[in-house]
């Protein structure tokens, strides 16, 4: 997942590399996702997230639909 100046820059990069577009998120939404996904990673009692837990995190930050399905 790469950071770009704007959606225009994403479109130009996709075209240059002949990549199919995926999904573009604003920095604030990525930050929100990162907070939910990674916040417990250094906890001493950390346990691996289940797929269902991770899917629920994606849903909680509004990432729904086939593109965001983990399976």
């Amino acid at each position: 997942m790469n950071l770009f100046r704007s959606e225009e820059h994403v479109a130009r990069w996709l075209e240059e590399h002949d990549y199919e577009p995926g999904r573009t998120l604003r920095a604030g939404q990525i930050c929100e996702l990162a907070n939910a996904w990674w916040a417990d990673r250094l906890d001493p009692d950390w346990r691996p997230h289940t797929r269902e837990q991770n899917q629920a995190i994606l849903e909680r930050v509004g990432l729904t639909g086939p593109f965001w399905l983990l399976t």
Partner: protein
Amino acid sequence: MDDRDLARRNRIYAQLLELGRAPTIAETGADPDALRRLHDEHALVLEPDGSAIRMLAPFSGVATPYRVQAAGREWFANCVWDAFGILAALGVGGHVSATCLDCGDQLEVEVADGRPKPDDLVAHFLLPARRWWEDIVFT
């Protein structure tokens, strides 16, 4: 993941925080089979030949264009999601530096209270979620 592997994983993450970088394979003191199990369970990512730790997500074991300044140190992240993830994992604000892959401009983001400034930069997910682990380095 059984309790012994979980303990191994937690020791390796503790070493990361202590050293400010991913430990070498020798520094982990773990046998190759145990590290391979952790790799297979996505608890860490080894280089293809098993010679080093490539990722202790969200931290990177190698230098990348995603740099994070936080808690008095500089860290490397695997991608922009992980860059913000390092701040989330450390529970601190900080600064993320990256390069726009299109124009090559340096992008600078300050994060405080879980919010980025500026917030008009964008991130692109090329692959759908079900394919993220097909090649996690590319993802």
